[in-house]
């Protein structure tokens, strides 16, 4: 990365102590598939096979992997929307595995999600103001109108956007609304699931800059999930590479991209076409040469 923001990530807020924002310990998730043969039940799907990592406060942690590697399953478990088959997950030191929904409010207050598809992440029948205010309603916060106006401005939209409907906005603007909704309950952790994959190139840069600004200003912890290695490289301090339900490698972005240790990571990085590599003569055949297992 041309310019790595120097210095350690901002000191954790006083009072929260040294506990990590998120700590995941040996999490597995197994799905049973409906029977297709009479004699034996069909083999279960191991979506996660023992995943462990920890994310300190304020860090920008990337999760990279191809489709089917288990990153969305992991995301749902982090957000308390799905239960792991085994292992534990803690948010700010408090374990949430196995808790019923009514005792998960501490997760709802601290962790919020931003999604990929601008078309499907906003309810077409609700006004933008109600969409952004929904977490406030769910968690019983007051004076919602001012808070919504404040949030819309924070993401670069005019306050009067609150009275309009999602279909009146472009893809990039909808992602901003999605981000405003995530920030409504003043969470400490933002989990972004492929937030820019569905956007045009010229709009993607704007949204990435917005996320970076907000994470810095509000000293948030960011978990950024994507299949696009170059986006994760730009956004994150540390990155975990996932493959077939396991984390095959973790490290600082610099180390993982510059000198990957695991063979899968090497193959993954070798396969990524970039403008620079192409112009220095890397052809489609070169990208493919590394792929032969």
């Amino acid at each position, binding site marked *: 990365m041309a310019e790595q923001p120097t210095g350690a990530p901002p000191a954790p807020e006083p009072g929260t102590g040294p506990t990590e924002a998120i700590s995941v310990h040996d999490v597995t998730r197994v799905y049973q598939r409906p029977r297709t043969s009479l004699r034996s039940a069909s083999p279960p799907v191991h979506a996660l096979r023992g995943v462990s990592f920890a994310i300190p406060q304020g860090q920008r942690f990337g999760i990279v992997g191809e489709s089917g590697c288990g990153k969305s399953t992991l995301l749902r478990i982090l957000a308390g929307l799905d239960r792991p088959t085994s292992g534990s997950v803690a948010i700010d030191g408090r374990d949430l595995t196995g808790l019923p*929904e009514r005792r998960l409010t501490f997760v*709802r207050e601290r962790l919020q*999600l931003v*999604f990929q598809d601008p078309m*499907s992440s906003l*309810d077409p029948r609700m006004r933008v103001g109600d969409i952004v205010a*929904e977490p406030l309603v*769910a968690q019983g916060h007051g004076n919602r109108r001012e808070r919504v106006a404040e949030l819309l401005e924070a993401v670069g939209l005019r306050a009067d956007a609150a009275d309009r409907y999602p279909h009146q906005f472009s893809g990039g603007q909808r992602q901003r609304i999605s981000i405003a909704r995530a920030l409504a309950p003043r969470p400490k952790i933002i989990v972004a699931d492929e937030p820019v994959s569905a956007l045009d190139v010229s709009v993607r840069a704007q949204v990435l800059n917005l996320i970076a600004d907000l994470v810095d200003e509000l000293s948030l912890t960011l978990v950024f999930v994507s299949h696009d290695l170059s986006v994760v490289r730009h956004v994150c301090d540390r990155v975990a590479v996932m493959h077939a339900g396991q984390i095959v490698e973790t490290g600082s972005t610099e180390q993982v991209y510059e000198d990957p240790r695991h063979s899968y990571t090497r193959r993954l990085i070798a396969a990524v076409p970039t403008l620079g590599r192409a112009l220095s003569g890397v052809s489609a055949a070169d990208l493919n040469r590394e792929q032969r297992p």
Partner: protein
Amino acid sequence: MSVQEREATVASAVSADRKRRRPVTGSLLVGGLIVAAVIGMALLSFVWTPHDPTLVDPSVRLQEPSSDYWFGTDKFGRDVFSQILVGSRTTLFVGFVAVGVAALIGVPLGIVAGMAPRWCGELLMRGNDLLLAFPALLLAIMFAAVYGAGTLVAMVAIGIASIPHFARLIRGGTLQIMRTEYVIAARAAGRGPFAIAVRHVLPNVSGLVIVQASVGFAIAVLAEAALSFLGFGTPPPTPSWGRMLQESQELLSIAPRLAVFPGVAIAVAVLGFNLLGDGLRDRFDPKLEDRR
């Protein structure tokens, strides 16, 4: 094909994003006009009818249409036009109650089946399919066998038989909505299932409900006409288009008009509701445009 696939083909794709309102299509206009006319007729019949539809007057039996009796008179001397007017009241009443019963039970059932865990949804739909094995007419005949004929019997029977259509369609729509990111976001924000059902699912399936309601109305009108025709629907003397048709049967050779007028009334009403259904479907969900 499991029930899901069958639902996917029958249930509509609930488009997550409504582009600008679709233009008023022909079917919406024509359908709307016809339905308005039928409702107009019903309301008018409360206030005025050329003659008392139930007044038997043998002296004017089987008169041809004239300035006095616009549609002529039937074998008991009753004015056909007045019967048609008042008959529209019965038709609308049966339709509203039947669709009401079907929607009030079918929609929540569909939403619960869509939001419940998979096996529970499966079970509910299995039971739902079972109810499909007892079409409206059969149910009504069974009811009539036990409780005797009557408008109420007809309405309740048609209503209950229409529940599975609502439940299946709404469950399909709910399943799709529950998969959208805005519902996942609501869950992540701490919204409970009830809030999600009311705030997200219901508004987004409302398009489906209205479309199925108008089509359900058409089915109810047909069913009521058939029941009255068989003598299980509205008992005399309340005028009913179905029964008018039945009474006209033995006089076909002398006065075919006695069959034509109620028959056309039924056909036009059903056509109106079906066209309204098509038009509303185009308006609410372009992807449904060519469905059915």
